């Protein structure tokens, strides 16, 4: 514990340095705006803003991106409560009771509880992240190539299983992403694959253009031609304070949402979305008068909002401790780390203590900033919705192009972005979940390298994957998930995801 506190002190000295503080602050504001804007979810927001981080040092870059991630969770609740428009998918459940409270003239307390719940959950989950990630990373140091291969396979299968829709769809997307990751130089032999004479493809298909295209451009294409005008009425500052009964009713849901969100966030999949659905259903089941839900029950705001914020910290556990992204947002953050020359994996915490502990400390700072910033400025943030979409999307498009080009000064990347945009647009039109594609693309080189290194160690004996207990255990779980997923296609009623409330209604929009 002494070590943790000492490291945290190092982290705070990094996080409170003026330049990092500025980026934490900027990340929180941009994240809130991203969360407020319907359609531009954390994924599209981070993808579009990733190129901005290239000129920064790695710590500032990750701090900025993490700020956007959890800032979006805060911001998403605002439009859900005030206008019944979920700024991002994790706020869908907040719409139900949050908007009902607005109709009853209690929008202020709903916003305040959402912000306080997010703050409490955010802060407590960072404590859990701080305590859990280092021992997990230490444990993972025992991993060799077979264990890494098994872990990556398991991660992909869990994501495929947890994503909405049949597992065949998610597996197709993951396999497609993995195949895209095969383009470029083979790391073991130096041979170029599928580069078709384009020297720019020698290093492989870039994660940034694909992420920006799949999430950012596809979103622009899907929402093109939209011309909705919105009615906005933000509460005044003095209307924000909840009464004693509302505080009392919210306390337990915030606690439960925090624990649920963190645990679900660790598991690969869209944890921030799933956790808010699970939290809402748990609160409704535990309520003495479940019929209040849907009519403006503050528990229906407190639980899901706490859960989705807590899940963002949970999602960073496998990313920072193992180098395994649990979803598309951590995958893009991982890509950002790699762009800055930082090798993700269990050694990260040892090799880059200033980065790891700086990010942790900045998350404490960011959560405090968001609490202080969000409530008084809620009126200002919702005004973003008054910006006509006909000006907003051209700006986003130009910004995406600029950012993607700036990575390698390559127009090939701009073409890749446009191509990925078309693919993302068509797949989302067909209700396909596109997050596994980006995860596959990020993990493909690691998966291949560990697979071939394992066989090199065992002199070509495939039993190496089944005789080492950790690898065998993970592969068995992966196989079980695959069989469960395939079984659920034939017997929809027996799908365990349904019992857990994990099937995500509303399709894959905004993820």
């Amino acid at each position, binding site marked *: 514990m002494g070590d943790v506190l000492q490291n945290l002190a190092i982290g705070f000295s990094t996080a409170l340095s003026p330049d990092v503080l500025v980026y934490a602050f900027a990340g929180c504001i941009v994240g809130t705006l991203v969360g407020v804007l319907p359609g531009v979810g954390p994924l599209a927001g981070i993808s579009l803003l990733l190129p901005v981080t290239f000129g920064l040092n790695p710590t500032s870059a990750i701090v900025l991106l993490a700020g956007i991630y959890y800032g979006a969770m805060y911001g998403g609740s605002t439009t859900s409560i005030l206008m019944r428009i979920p700024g991002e998918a994790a706020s869908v459940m907040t719409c139900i009771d949050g908007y009902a409270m607005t109709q009853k003239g209690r929008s202020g307390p709903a916003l305040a509880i959402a912000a306080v719940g997010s703050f409490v959950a955010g802060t407590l989950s960072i404590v859990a992240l701080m305590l859990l990630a280092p021992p997990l990373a230490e444990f993972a140091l025992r991993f060799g190539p077979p264990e890494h291969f098994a872990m990556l396979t398991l991660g992909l299968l869990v994501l495929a299983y947890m994503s909405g829709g049949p597992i065949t769809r998610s597996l197709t997307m993951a396999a497609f992403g993995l195949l895209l990751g095969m383009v470029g130089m083979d790391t073991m032999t130096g041979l170029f694959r*599928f580069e078709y004479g384009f020297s720019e493809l020698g290093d492989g298909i870039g994660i940034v253009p694909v992420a920006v295209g799949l999430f950012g451009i596809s979103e622009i294409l899907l929402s093109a031609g939209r011309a909705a005008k919105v009615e906005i009425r933000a509460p005044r500052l003095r209307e924000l304070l909840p009464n004693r009964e509302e505080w009392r009713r919210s306390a337990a849901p915030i606690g439960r949402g925090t624990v649920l969100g963190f645990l679900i966030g660790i598991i690969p999949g869209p944890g921030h979305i799933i956790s808010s659905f699970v939290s809402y259903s748990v609160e409704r089941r535990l309520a003495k008068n479940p019929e209040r839900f849907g009519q403006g029950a503050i528990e229906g705001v407190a639980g899901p909002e706490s859960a989705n914020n807590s899940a963002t910290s949970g999602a960073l556990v496998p990313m920072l401790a193992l180098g395994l992204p649990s979803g598309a947002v951590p995958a893009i953050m991982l890509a950002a780390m790699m762009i800055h020359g930082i090798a993700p994996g269990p050694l990260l915490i040892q090799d880059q203590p200033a980065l790891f502990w700086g990010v942790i400390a900045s998350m404490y700072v960011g959560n405090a900033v968001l609490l202080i910033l969000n409530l008084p400025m809620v009126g200002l943030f919702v005004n973003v919705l008054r910006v006509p979409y*006909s*000006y907003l999307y*051209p700006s986003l*498009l130009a910004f995406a192009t600029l950012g993607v080009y700036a990575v390698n*000064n390559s127009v090939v990347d701009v073409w890749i972005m*446009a191509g990925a945009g078309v693919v993302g647009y068509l797949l989302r039109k067909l209700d396909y979940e596109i997050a596994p594609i980006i995860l596959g693309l990020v993990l493909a080189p690691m998966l291949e390298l560990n697979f071939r290194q394992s066989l090199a160690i065992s002199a070509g004996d495939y039993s190496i994957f089944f005789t080492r207990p950790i690898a065998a255990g993970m592969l068995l779980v992966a196989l079980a998930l695959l069989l469960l997923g395939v079984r659920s296609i034939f017997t929809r009623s027996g799908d365990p995801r349904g019992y857990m409330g994990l099937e995500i209604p509303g399709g894959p929009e905004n993820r």
Partner: protein
Amino acid sequence: MRSLTIDHVAGLFFTAFSLFVLWESRKIPFGFLAEPGPGVMPTLLASTLLVCSIALILGGRSGKRAAAVQWTEWWHALVILGTCAFMALALERLGYRLTIFIALLTLVSVLERKGWIAGLLFAGCFSAGTYFLFNALLNVPLPLGPLGL
């Protein structure tokens, strides 16, 4: 065509794609199963994709019909994609500021019909502002066009 489901459409596309990758993978040394070469993983993954795609086609009989998908925004989407292609072609030829200026002017004034003055003002401020932000403040070099624009 009318009875195809979305899973059929996606399955057919990915079947074709995986077959293409399998065909192309012939050119890459496969090695041996015990000592895999650079062609093994693409072949394995393309085969996995092929199996998944066939499963999609076989299992997708009862899903949403492809004909039911609404394409109301197709014209906007097409023009936006055209603008993307223009930016890719023009960025290094016309320079950042001119390319972004033309692209934004097209989208705002032509596609969105917001008027020429609004379009000119918006496109001019955005292209000059972002150029200053990235070039001067963030030290990201952006391409220059004719006359140093």
